[in-house]
């Protein structure tokens, strides 16, 4: 049986190809001039350049964090190119004007843009490397007053909004990679939902790292005004390169009174080959501020790619009765390393949070859940429920749990549960009895294991995630 399983585990990365679009790449290295160059290229206002330079100054004083349970050769930040943009082209109005090469890329990824638009009614803000190339459904969204555009565009067209919220949830000095991102971020998505508006469709962005050796530093921001709601989807694939690529994104969410933000991610970046060579370093800071009363922020992530994943989508529950949720499936195989989890910071009264984390580690990989549940003295009546389950596939892998629970008042309820298990021979035997082969059985068991999380995903993502997991892992028990 092992051989079958081995085969399944060792499926090559399907999305590994390089699109040859001419890129406008900045010389390698980072200094104030690089930042001025990025800012100038993007025609940014003075305050943003200041923000970048201050972040850079803060970054210089910071040390690379060593506490995560991941190991990798030291990153040479001077060997990275901090800006790569497809050659400037006039702004496009319809899909027909998009570079056919680019369209073919999405075709290969199985994400035909127009089909998606037609079938799913999804507006896709396509990020190709660092600059937004086309934005669909923008006009439809504009009708209800929703702003959904690239960050660069937002900086130019809605500077007052960007300036008001940029760095308020994740200050540049928050951590090493957030500071780096604040200094050199190139693009990302910007989303503003006005008061009382329920976003009529799921918003989606496809990120894709394309130029070899170019770190990608996205900056995404979602602001949900009073009484509004939005569901945002983020999906990622990247071509197979042998040298490591750094990805340090920052995502900030702000939910005001009664607002609701749902943020879903499927991440399937290049994870390196079976010997652990290559792959993306995914060092991401994601945080949502549930600022208003009764606001809700929900993170759902399916992490299957990247050589190293290091991210903790967090919720700061400031408003009374606000709700934070975190649903995660993290799969590691070969030599992948993942140190991921969440932070739930309860500050407001009667705040509630739920954490459901499922980790699956196969091959020589290591998968860690690291979470913080902090109940401040002011968070009376707070409630948290956490569940983190790990599944090990093969005896060379590791699963780790580091849950920090800090409670500072006596009228809150915190529960944490964790378990570790494997797919039992008896379970496989049961399936075999019913004529289901090991491959299909494991796929079913794993999908069952992750069900609680997949249920949280929007429909089309759930389908994709199920398929992704099946091809990454199914049958990998021996």
């Amino acid at each position, binding site marked *: 049986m092992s051989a079958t399983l081995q085969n399944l585990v060792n499926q090559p990365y399907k999305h590994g190809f390089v699109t040859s679009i001419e890129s406008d790449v900045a010389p390698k290295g980072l200094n104030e001039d690089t930042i001025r160059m990025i800012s100038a290229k993007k025609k940014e206002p003075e305050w943003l350049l200041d923000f970048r330079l201050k972040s850079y100054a803060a970054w210089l004083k910071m040390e690379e964090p060593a506490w995560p349970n991941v190991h990798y050769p030291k990153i040479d930040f001077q060997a990275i190119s901090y800006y790569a943009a497809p050659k400037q082209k006039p702004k496009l109005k319809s899909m027909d004007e998009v570079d056919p090469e680019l369209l073919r890329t999405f075709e290969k990824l199985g994400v035909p843009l127009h089909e998606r638009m037609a079938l799913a009614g999804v507006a896709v803000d396509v990020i190709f490397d660092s600059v937004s190339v086309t934005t669909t459904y923008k006009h439809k969204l504009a009708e209800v007053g929703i702003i959904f555009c690239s960050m660069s565009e937002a900086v130019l067209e809605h500077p007052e909004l960007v300036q008001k919220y940029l760095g308020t949830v994740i200050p540049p000095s928050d951590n090493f990679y957030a500071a780096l991102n604040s200094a050199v971020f190139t693009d990302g998505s910007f989303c503003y939902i006005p008061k009382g508006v329920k976003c009529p469709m799921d918003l989606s962005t496809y990120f894709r790292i394309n130029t070899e050796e170019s770190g990608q530093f996205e900056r995404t921001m979602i602001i949900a005004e009073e009484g509004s709601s939005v569901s945002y989807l983020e999906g990622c694939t990247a071509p197979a390169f042998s040298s490591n690529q750094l990805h340090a994104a920052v995502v900030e969410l702000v939910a005001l009174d009664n607002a609701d933000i749902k943020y879903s991610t499927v991440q399937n970046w290049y994870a390196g080959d079976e010997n652990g060579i290559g792959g993306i370093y995914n060092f991401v800071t994601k945080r949502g501020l549930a600022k208003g009363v009764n606001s809700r922020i929900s993170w759902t992530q399916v992490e299957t790619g990247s050589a190293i994943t290091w991210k903790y989508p967090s919720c700061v529950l400031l408003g009374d009765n606000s709700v934070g949720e975190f649903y995660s499936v993290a799969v590691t195989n070969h030599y992948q390393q993942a140190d991921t989890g969440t932070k739930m910071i309860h500050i407001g009264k009667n705040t509630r949070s739920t954490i459901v984390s499922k980790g699956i580690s196969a091959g020589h990989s290591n998968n860690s859940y690291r979470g913080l549940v902090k109940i401040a003295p002011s968070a009376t009546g707070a409630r948290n429920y956490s569940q983190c389950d790990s599944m*090990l596939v093969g005896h060379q892998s590791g699963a780790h749990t580091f849950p920090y*629970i800090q409670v500072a008042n006596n009228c809150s309820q915190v529960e944490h*549960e964790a378990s570790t298990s494997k797919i039992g021979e008896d379970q496989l035997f049961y399936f075999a009895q019913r004529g289901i082969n090991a491959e299909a059985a494991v796929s079913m068991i794993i999908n069952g294991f992750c069900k609680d999380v997949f249920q949280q995903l929007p429909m089309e993502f759930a389908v994709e995630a199920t398929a992704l997991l099946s091809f990454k892992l199914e049958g990998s028990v021996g």
Partner: protein
Amino acid sequence: MSASGTMNAGYLETLLAGQPHLPASPLAWLNALRAEAVDRVGVLTVPTQRDEEWRFTDISQLTKMSFHPVRTTISLQVADIERFYIEEATTRLVFVDGVYAPQLSSGITDNGVAVVNLEAGFAAHAAAIEPYLGRLTEFSDNVFAALNTAFLHDAALIVVPRDTSVAVPVHLLFIATQKDVVSYPRCLLLAGSGSAVTVVEDYVSLQEDAYFTNAVTEIALVDNARVNHIRVQREGAKAFHIANCAVTVARASNYQSVSVAFGARISRYNLNVQLAEEAECAVDGLALIAGRQLADTHTCIDHAMPNAVSRQMHKCIVGGSAHAVFNGKIKVRQGAQRTDSRQSSRNLLLTGKAHVDTKPQLEIFADDVKCTHGATIGQLDNEEVFYLQSRGLSETAARNMLTYAFGAEIIERMPISSLKLQLEQTVLEQTTVQP
């Protein structure tokens, strides 16, 4: 950083000041061990909250006070300490401020069983002791264990030979009588193959001023041995108590431990248990604190070999503006298949200012294992309170009863009935709120 480093160095020097006057031991290896420990103290610094292992426990107060090694020993009478005696445990070793008090002790030396102080037991057991003493407790990165080892000259020694079971529980009583003194209690328990023994490690105080207890306990279970280890920390209200305990559980042995922390201004207990094949351990703990107390328990259960079983239940009852810390690590090494491990951390906060930091941690490198852990923090269940009220109890009485029961669950697990009664009484007194 450098400023605090210098301060630390000065502080450690002060603590080390008494060390050179220790009489040299006739055993060369023991002198070498001490010298090694002194060297380590020279290299290490006092941990701060910047160290992950100490991030919730601020011991800066400890470093602000100057403690000196005991200079004069106080001679106590049986009447002074009788109230600490445990009825069943007639075998008793008493240490006053860390110094052995023979007139108060009643050890055993017969049929190869030894319950004696280390100095008396050296001659007969030197060869048996050497592989364990100072070897089970890793002091290369633990400044408090290194300090204790630097001062190692006497200790409580329990040697139980092969296939022998010691019928009477052994009571190791450490009494603090002087203020501003630092004492270095040390215990070594060697349980031979197929042996069985019950030991009570008990820290008490006759005075309420500040002092510092820095204890190290080492326990080795050879194949098929069974050890019941009870630890009672009821130090004075201003005391500092830092203790390290290392246990190695060999094949098919069984280690049962119940530790309770009631006393001390700041206490810290590190327990490391390493399990070999088919070994079993049950590690339970209770911290019952109030006022401005801080009780910190760090445990590490290391499943080094296959087929071992571990169970852990740690409870904290926190009142006043006290602070409880629990960090329980379960480690399953590569190849330690069919490990079965269960851990639970349950915490009860009695007041709005009380606070708990808990971190149940799993590190697993084997696939065929069953590991679960759980943690809860909260207050009494209103439904339970209501149920008792419906049976005619006042709300206060109902709450008192439930709080008591929460703590008593751990005490219940002790195998000595008189001690159980004594400690249950303490829990009752401390958790009872007058209506």
